[in-house]
């Protein structure tokens, strides 16, 4: 059904338009003066000042791999994150643990682990799907590079961002 938008009734002064223009000019002038006198504080000089301190704990930044407290890598190269990743940013090349290894029951480890940061959409699905709690979204947000190759994070870079995370991980438990 047709709907008529009600038009506001304008007074004589509003119809003249010029007084309203002056009113608008006064408002913008006020903003200008407040800005010049430093009363308005809404600006952060970005590269010098950063908002890292006020970043919420649930912030989803760059995904990274973590090691446990003994320096062992948590990832078992199950490739679940590679399969779930919506933009297919993750590429894993699994490797087999040697048969004489003490942790041979773990079976696999990632020989290569690349995340293409030009594709990553920071959705956090890799973190959710990981059975070993090996991949986490960290608070790094300024991911830059001069070429596409530099934007691909390899294993070393991922562990560098991720660091160490303590806590129980099932695969290193000899009793399980």
């Amino acid at each position, binding site marked *: 059904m047709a709907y008529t938008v009600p038009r506001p009734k304008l007074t004589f002064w509003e119809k003249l338009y*010029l007084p309203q223009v002056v009113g608008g000019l006064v408002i913008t002038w006020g*903003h200008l003066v407040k800005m010049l006198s*430093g009363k308005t504080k809404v*600006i952060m000089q970005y590269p010098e000042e950063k908002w890292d301190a006020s970043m919420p704990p649930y912030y989803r930044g760059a995904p990274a791999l973590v090691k446990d407290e003994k320096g062992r890598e948590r990832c078992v190269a199950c490739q679940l994150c590679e399969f779930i990743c919506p933009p297919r940013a993750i590429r894993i090349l699994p490797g087999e643990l040697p048969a004489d290894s003490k942790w041979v029951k773990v079976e696999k480890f990632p020989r290569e682990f690349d995340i293409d940061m030009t594709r990553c959409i920071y959705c956090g699905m890799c973190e959710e799907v990981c059975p070993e709690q090996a991949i986490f979204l960290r608070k790094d947000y300024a991911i830059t590079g001069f070429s596409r190759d530099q934007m691909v994070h390899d294993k070393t870079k991922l562990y560098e961002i991720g660091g160490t995370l303590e806590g129980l991980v099932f695969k290193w438990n000899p009793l399980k």
Partner: protein
Amino acid sequence: MDALYSIDWYLILTSLAKTVVVLGIVLFMVSYTVYAERRVSALIQDRLGPNRVGFPLTLIGAKKDFSPILGGLGQPIADAVKLLLKEDFTPAHVNKFYYWIAPALGIGSVIVSLAVIPFGSSFLGDKMVIANVNIGPLFIFAFSSLGVYGIVLAGWSSNSKYPFLGGIRSSSQMISYELALGLSVIPLFIILGTLNLSDIVDYQVRNGWLLIPFTNGHLDFRKILLWGPIAISFVVFTISMFAETNRLPFDMPECETELVGGYHTEYSSMKFALFFLGEYAAMIAGSSLIVTLFLGGWHCPFIPDGTGAGGWEALHVIPAWIWGLVNIGVFFGKVGLLLLFFIWVRWTLPRFRYDQLMRLGWIFFFEIALVNVFITAFIVALLPN
């Protein structure tokens, strides 16, 4: 050698010198008007604007030199270098000849119109106006309306929908506003009896600025009576000037939001920069005309002119040529303030709808200007000077 001292060579050399000076000042003002535009718009919107490319730290590679006030003064240089070095791309589907000639028309007409503006009183005995012609305002109107050909040709030759719409809007906007623009200053010419811009300024030095008639120190009944029509023609003229120079709230040909840049959508690099330059130079030319017609040109009360006459007696000890320079400074200072007003209005008002603009031009300003002519004629006939 004697030929160099002839009147012809004197005229040629002084005109050349004055042309270089005016062109230099105007192009400098254009680049810093763009900077002012960005800074003022930012401050009005509670931002800071460009505040990093400053003198001289960024030139030698220092990074942490942002400052709220002085930083960013190098921005126009950076912008100019960027625009000069960008790829000058000509799309395959354009009409090459008109595509190339349009930016030149856009800026050329504006720069020519600067020739008749008296930008100072006199300096070392020479009048500070490049061409002291007796048809000043007509000359400016003629050339500023040529500027629309640049826009229309750019819109048409681009062979693309948005520029075409921009060009069409521009042409109809010019037609509807130039009527009001021309008619609104006729009352001034009735009062002044001359079309020579230097004479107009001289009249204002003697009898007070037209818009602020008490600057010569006294008011009479005739002046107060004439102030009403002059104020009306000032308002109509200024608003028409906004439309003439394609400034918001009348930037129909450009319309970033609707026409993605309008007539210069298909332009890049220095050709785009020429349009940009032309637009801001037109603003400066328009402001100069407003200052000359209504705000006393280079005159400032109490300050002597370039021959050392007028003003306070106490100031006459200082050589006259210094006052000649001060007068030039006063003129460009007034123009600068008016430019700030242009910018201030731009960041306050939203764009008019197309039909509203037509209505304003044809139904209101045209009639107001026309009636104003008769009111002024009536007053002048009643109280001849």
